[in-house]
């Protein structure tokens, strides 16, 4: 069966809510009553991973099992603490933080049942203790935690799991295999092919040593609209397809101010109708911070704000205004993000989030504007071809995604097929970035507007 066939339109009796509930029930059963030391959950973008983590944490706490939660960034930890407190304000939660200045979100100070400390000993007795992998690595305990939840486990490096795995007896590993792999700043070819290659992802090492662990998958993306789920599933998850929780027509994007006929306005209208838009600039080799492309990105954002957008979705019967907080710009490099930020500040839209793919992981917006990683480049390196980078950029939106790109990327891809050496013993990742890039480009070509 091909990926195409797998991701065919949902049969009439497909009930996303029921499917997702069934998957969640199985995961919770294995976590609470299973015999294996670990459970792995793969989650596509926006499939309710955080909701699952919060629910599992609450049920484990209810069952009286001391729980530690390992996330990868402080923002992720704070977000989980806030969600836990929202679901159960009385649950004694511990937030273990670093001894730097401003180590956690100030919003945590308002929560009565949340205790914060830089020392793990101060948090003994809290039902749930949460921190980053980096902080947990400095903790030593006499008695390990009965249970752990490792969030964003595919973005965690094997060596940081090694540093914390002695702290818990059993664990639930949750993550998105399609997003960016962890990386090392120095070469690590020396260990390629070893099951415990320290630069590989935590899940890769875990499963290599424990192949019998139960693996689950969340089948429904609640974030991605029907227009995007199909493409993202086909291009990035061909062997583990998922569907959107909403159908075509469940969401819509409308604008109060009509188009002025310019490139940005036409691509906005195309994206509002189809969920995708490609604003194509003439072919040219440029520096990374291509001034024209940066200006085009900024112009699209400005027009999105000016045209009084209203987003209608299953969340509420009334349309919600498309504000700056609901828009984000994604780039491949930090200097590109800085250039876009500066251009947006010039247009008075400085409050719109602009970040790299790495930092946008796990975030959600109504509309995203993406500077294509290969736009204007003379070459396509492994960095730019990485599947996860494009996947993150193309899966942050609830309504529409607008890509700004120079012409000629398809030809560039053909000039630079993947040539990474194959290492014995390593799992070859499918699909490769080259193929995924082509798949996305082919789809975007149907929604092309010339600048």
């Amino acid at each position, binding site marked *: 069966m091909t990926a195409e066939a797998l991701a065919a339109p949902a049969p009439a009796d497909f009930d996303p809510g029921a499917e997702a509930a069934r998957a969640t029930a199985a995961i919770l059963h294995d976590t609470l009553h299973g015999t294996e030391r670990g459970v792995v959950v793969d989650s596509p973008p926006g499939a309710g991973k955080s909701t699952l983590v919060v629910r599992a944490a609450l049920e484990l706490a209810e069952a009286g099992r001391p729980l530690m939660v390992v996330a990868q960034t402080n923002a992720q930890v704070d977000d989980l603490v806030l969600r836990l407190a929202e679901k159960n304000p009385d649950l004694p939660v511990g937030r273990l933080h670093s001894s730097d200045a401003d180590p956690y979100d100030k919003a945590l100070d308002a929560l009565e049942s949340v205790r914060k400390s830089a020392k793990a000993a101060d948090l003994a007795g809290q039902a749930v203790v949460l921190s980053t992998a980096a902080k947990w690595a400095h903790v030593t305990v006499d008695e390990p935690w009965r249970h752990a939840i490792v969030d964003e486990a595919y973005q965690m490096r094997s060596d940081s799991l090694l540093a914390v795995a002695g702290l818990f007896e059993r664990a639930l590993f949750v993550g998105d295999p399609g997003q960016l792999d962890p990386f090392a700043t*120095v070469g690590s070819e020396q260990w390629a092919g070893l099951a415990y290659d320290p630069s590989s992802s935590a899940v890769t090492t875990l499963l290599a040593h424990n192949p019998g662990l139960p693996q689950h998958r969340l089948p429904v993306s609640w974030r991605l609209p029907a227009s995007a789920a199909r493409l993202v599933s086909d291009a990035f998850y061909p062997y583990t397809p998922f569907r959107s929780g909403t159908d075509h027509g469940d969401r819509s994007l409308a604008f109060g101010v009509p188009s002025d006929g310019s490139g940005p306005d036409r691509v906005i209208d195309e994206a509002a109708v189809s969920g995708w838009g490609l604003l194509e600039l003439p072919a040219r080799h440029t520096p990374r911070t291509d001034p024209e492309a940066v200006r085009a990105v900024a112009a699209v954002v400005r027009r999105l704000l000016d045209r009084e957008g209203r987003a209608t979705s299953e969340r509420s019967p009334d349309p919600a205004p498309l504000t700056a907080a609901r828009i984000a710009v994604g780039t491949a490099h930090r200097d590109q993000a800085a250039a876009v930020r500066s251009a947006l500040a010039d247009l008075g839209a400085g409050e719109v989030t602009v970040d790299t793919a790495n930092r946008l992981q796990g975030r959600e917006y109504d509309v995203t504007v993406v500077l294509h990683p290969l736009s204007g480049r003379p070459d396509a390196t492994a960095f730019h071809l990485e599947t996860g980078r494009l996947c993150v950029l193309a899966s942050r939106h609830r309504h529409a995604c607008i890509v700004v790109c120079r012409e000629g990327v398809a030809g560039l891809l053909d000039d630079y097929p993947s040539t990474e050496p194959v290492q014995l013993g390593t799992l070859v990742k499918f699909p490769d970035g080259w193929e995924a890039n082509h798949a996305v480009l082919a789809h975007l070509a149907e929604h092309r507007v010339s600048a």
Partner: protein
Amino acid sequence: MSLITTLARLEAVRTGRAQPAATVRHRHLSDRPLVFVPLTTAGEAGAPLGALVGTDRDAPHLLVVPQPRDRDLRFAFLADLADIVLPHVEAYAESVEAAERTETDPETGKRVKVEVDLCADAAQLVVPSRAGIDFVRLLGRSMRFRRTAEQDPETPHPAPPRVPLLGRWLTHYGERARVPGSSLLLAMTDLLGRHWATGQSTLEDQHLGALLAWIAPEFSPEPGLTGAEAARRAELARDADGQLLCPPAGPATDPAFDNRLLAPAIERYDRARTALAAAEDGLEADERLGALTAAEREIRALVDSRTRPTWDAVWRGLDLLRELPEGAHAEERWTRDRWSFTSHRDRILAGEPPQPRRDDAVTAANKLATREREQARLEAQEALDDPLVMAGRRLSGEAFAGEVVDVVMAYSESKRPSPRPLVTVRTDDRPHLGERAKVYRSLGGKPQTAEYVGPAASDDGFGDGTGTGDGDGTGTGDGTRDGDGVLVLRIMDKMGRGKEPEAGSVPEKGDLVCFTLFEHEQRGGAKLPDPEQTPWTHGGPPGAAAAVPEAADAQTEEDVL
């Protein structure tokens, strides 16, 4: 490739010679480096053909394997190599000074200072190219598990006494060379490539002859060539017999040399040897021994002719590098190399087994963490030591330099207010500063932290935020917004304990300052479990199997040599 490197390469193309990529030397160079120029046999990985090795540029030792497929001759080569390399290494290993090291007391678990020996200097090994480093590693791997007759009287092919020890040292050097900024084992192409930017690709820079031709075209045998022309000559020019004028730096040899010169010479040697073995009386044997010696001498001359140009090139490269003053932090990194050298010496003295074939999970993770830390340390130190490197970081928005235009005293809001002066800096750089981003400057060799407050208020005419500069760093915009950036910073530390900052700890109006967005010093990583405590996620403890020293690869039927 960073923007400044691209610019330097473009300039090299335009001027016809390499451009400096550094103003100081960022690697320590020993007064007596041991230079090693090996050649290997085509089609037979790890079968050395010969080498030039030594510390005297005018008198290298020439080692040759006249029949590389003969294991006895190979062992003789390795034994000779051990006789040259090991005394050099051991001379350094014997001279020690007292030093302090922090260790965990096994009884109390506390960190205590202990006095230990630290080698006063370490032996430095220089090879021509990166492939040479790989060859050192390969030699190390092929030797360290060998057994000598003394260790194991039963072993079928006992190695000469000191060969396994040489294997352990070469393995250590090869492994240390993977640590960024280390200088125990250096490749000349990497060294030169770090300090000069040529007008060719980094791949082409791995040809030592071509790289030197760009840096010093005047050394080319043909005068008046540009760098590009001289490099092309070094790569491609051949004599009337079809042999390269500038032989590759190895260890691989040129196929034309293999086919037309080396193969016939080895064949003559083989025939002479067979003939000698078949000699029927002493007189005949004497005569045939003469023929064998002549055949061997011929191969020696061939190997010498192909390694000598590279040998000279390595020393010329050392001359060029020695003209640069050593960077301020290079000595500190060399001290780390000395610690590494000393710890390996101690492991050998303690009778520990050779390095295992593969790292266990904990060792691998520790090595990766160390190398990432050293990489960050190296990048920071090179920038601090060298204004040209810092210029590259400034150009990419990771640092900024400028003049202090205003200093306003302010205090922290706490029970005991501490000084938190606001310093206004005018810069032409375009740093990528986020809200409350931390920046650092070097104050007497220690990093001082400041926090980015924001652009200066617009009433002074700067940073009004309405300019039309496109902020892309390409210079096409008018740059009125970013070009005259005026930034306000809040100094956070290194001002002493008092209410008033210590003298000299706060920049003054008119001072030229340089702040970086990257940290100057690296924090130590988390402690990983001991290998015996490897958790279930990583396969559990390595167990008893790993405790037995590994044997060398067993002979198989495919081992025809």
